[in-house]
């Protein structure tokens, strides 16, 4: 009996270890993505977008999550027919010969897609002169950053919307020390940031924009020449202003380690550098009003430049994208045709509406003016954005999805940025680029927080360190050469 039981236990353990292979679809295209939309259906049967596509164009189009690139590379990569990847991966994989050369297809089978892209720059999709990617559509919408500010606090203190860096300082100072929420306690702060990237320096980009620079290694083009945010003449002055803000204790230092959004929403901080959706979507506004029903938010996108440049705030990269579709070099003719069929389907007309908004009548309807408006069931279509791959007419889409925030995204997407070109530059071999970047950010923060003396001479020493330890000068020389080759500068 004991033996029988142990046999059963062993059998059960072995069974548990076995993985059952999924049943195969007769004709299918499998695309790896690094994230899936919220509420992704558990089965293909429940995935009504999948079913609609299958019905309409007879392609079994499967999006599969690869949350770990190692997985994709090591053992499972060969099962995908195409990949949604970023520029770094496009380069490595392209050079390795893992991706399909699209140069010829651009003129033939993929012609309609590339035509649809219109004026979108293709530079990022090229690796060493070979076209490997289907880049994301660029339709005039740019980065979506702004500074959101508590208008009711401004009104309570009789202040104006900031227009210069001095105004920003004064407002932040008043928000900190003049009790803008009138609760009799000194418990508020001037400025925070929502930390949209992991670098934790976004807070100071709000200030450095006025000096035509930004925190860190950002390749810029000024007067037709390639330069770097670290080398901008206004940098030291900008850092001095950052230090002034820090020393006055009017910024939220916590946002270097955690997002400042909750501080802003809960009415502890009066200004936040953020991407608009977090604050301006109906949900964000609801949260703010739950805390304080009288809260009024407003926003601004730039401040006047202190160094005579065009007003700009925050860096943006028109070429960078974490969404390039690349096709496997091993794809069969049949699957390639199916994939192209899908691409043509989702770029215009019914297919585009399907992957943008969902099913007509169920998730969206046309209003009297012929605009698309979401219905109450629209949340059921939240997951479908992954199906859009690269194709989305951003402004049209935002207008339909978030009419409540139209004013904000119209202005933030049109605002001028400190345009950067890092994504088009490959570092010289042997250079430690990410080490250099993290060292530069650390030192800039040291300057701002007084761990390192802030002076022109010491800043020059810092640049010298970058050159000596990290070949920063060689990197910039390579950047200039490469951008010239690509025709970005003369």
């Amino acid at each position, binding site marked *: 009996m004991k033996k029988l039981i142990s046999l059963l236990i*062993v059998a059960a353990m072995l069974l548990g270890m076995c993985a059952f292979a999924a049943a195969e679809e007769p004709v299918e295209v499998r695309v790896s993505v690094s994230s899936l939309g919220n509420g992704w259906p558990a089965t293909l049967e429940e995935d009504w977008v999948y079913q609609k596509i299958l019905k309409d164009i007879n392609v079994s189009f499967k999006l599969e999550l690869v949350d770990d*690139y190692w997985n994709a590379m090591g053992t499972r990569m060969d099962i995908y027919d195409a990949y949604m990847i970023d520029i770094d991966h496009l380069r490595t994989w392209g050079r390795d010969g893992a991706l399909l050369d699209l140069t010829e297809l651009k003129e033939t089978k993929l012609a309609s897609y590339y035509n649809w892209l219109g004026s979108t720059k293709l530079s990022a999709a090229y690796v060493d002169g070979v076209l490997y990617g289907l880049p994301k559509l660029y339709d005039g919408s740019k980065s979506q950053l702004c500074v959101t500010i508590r208008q009711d606090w401004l009104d309570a203190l009789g202040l104006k919307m900031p227009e210069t860096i001095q105004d920003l300082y004064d407002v932040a100072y008043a928000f900190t020390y003049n009790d803008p929420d009138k609760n009799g306690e000194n418990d508020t702060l001037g400025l925070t940031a929502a930390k949209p990237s992991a670098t934790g320096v976004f807070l100071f980009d709000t200030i450095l924009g006025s000096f035509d620079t930004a925190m860190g290694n950002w390749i810029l083009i000024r007067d037709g020449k390639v330069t770097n945010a670290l080398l901008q003449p206004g940098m030291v002055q900008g850092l001095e202003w950052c230090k002034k803000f820090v020393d006055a204790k009017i910024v939220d230092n916590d946002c270097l380690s955690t997002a400042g959004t909750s501080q802003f929403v809960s009415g502890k901080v009066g200004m936040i550098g953020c991407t608009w959706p977090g604050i301006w979507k109906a949900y964000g506004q609801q949260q703010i009003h739950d805390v304080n029903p009288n809260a009024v938010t407003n926003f601004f996108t730039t401040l006047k430049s202190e160094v005579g440049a065009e007003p700009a705030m925050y860096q943006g990269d028109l070429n960078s994208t974490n969404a390039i579709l690349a096709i496997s070099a091993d794809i069969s003719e049949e699957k390639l045709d199916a994939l192209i069929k899908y691409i043509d389907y989702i770029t215009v007309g019914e297919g585009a509406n399907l992957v943008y908004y969902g099913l007509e009548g169920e998730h969206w309807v046309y209003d009297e003016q012929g605009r698309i408006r979401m219905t109450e069931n629209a949340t059921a279509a939240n997951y479908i954005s992954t199906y859009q791959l690269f194709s989305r007419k951003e402004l049209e889409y935002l207008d339909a999805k978030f009419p409540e925030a139209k004013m904000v995204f119209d202005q933030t997407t049109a605002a001028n940025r400190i345009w950067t070109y890092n994504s088009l530059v490959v570092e010289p071999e042997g250079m430690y680029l990410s080490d250099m970047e993290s060292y530069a950010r650390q030192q800039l923060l040291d300057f701002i927080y007084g761990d390192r003396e802030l002076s022109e001479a010491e800043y020059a020493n810092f640049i010298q360190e970058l050159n000596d330890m990290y070949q920063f000068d060689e990197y910039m020389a390579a950047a200039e050469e490469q951008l010239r080759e690509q025709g970005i500068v003369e």
Partner: protein
Amino acid sequence: MTQLSTPVFKKKPLGTRFIRAIRQYWPLYAMIIPGMLFFLIYKYLPMYGIQIAFKNFSLRKGIGDSLWLWDDKKEWFYWFERFFKSPQSSQIITNTLIISLSKLVMEMIPPLVFALAISETVFKKYARVIQTVSYLPHFLSWVIVFGICATMLGENSGVVNNMIKKMGGQAIPFLSNKKYIRGVLIGSSLWKGIGWSSIVFLAAIAGIDTSMYEAATIDGCGRFRQIWYITLPNLARIFVVLLITKVGHVLDGGFEQVYIFLNDRVRATAEIIDTWVYTQGLGKQQYSLTTAVGLMKSVLSCGLVLGTNALARKWDSSLW
């Protein structure tokens, strides 16, 4: 003429003995199989990939067909050299050692003291409640622990800093200052692990023969003397066993935790080997480089475990 059968003293061949043992105890042997399969699949087969530490790994060619470094006109230690030549490598190694050695001490001594305190508590119900409460943090993920730390230690609205400010002091940037971050890492690790780590000690204390305590009491030993002369010597063995297993992780430093706590203000004192490898390897797809660093870590850790064990053997409390 028939010979008298004498008792067989000669050992049978190993194969025969093995087969006989299997026949006799087959349920036990069968129960090893899943465990062995686990180690085979998840621990031994992946070692095939170690070779890319000595290759110029190409995605297209795969692990097997990528060029060996020496076929690619490079030294065999190219990737190891690349790690050590990084301007940050010495800083990273120092950070790793400081953080993980401090954690090692914190994972050994305080749980021991805690276990002693629990076992000496007269009110057993009270001890049991404390014990259970102390386990809870172990089950929280580091993301949640970080959330708790941010709420407690935040500069502007953190509970601790609010108290400091109310008492007229200056707010302390615990999470964004090079000086404090290691303390926060070690402290939060202690908070999370103290209850859980004390379980082993409590079990060992429960296993001590109570007659020893009775004898000691008769001989006039007080509480502290009992701990000193009976409890601690009895715990020495388990302490060393734990130490040996933990020493193997000295080069880890706790990726999951550090990665979450890391920001540019504290990178200089908190970046560890594993977080560096993560940004370089997975962020920049330098798989060969990261495999080399991983391999180096494994070899060193293995050496440390063997060394500690050899040392422990001198006191007759080695693991094997």
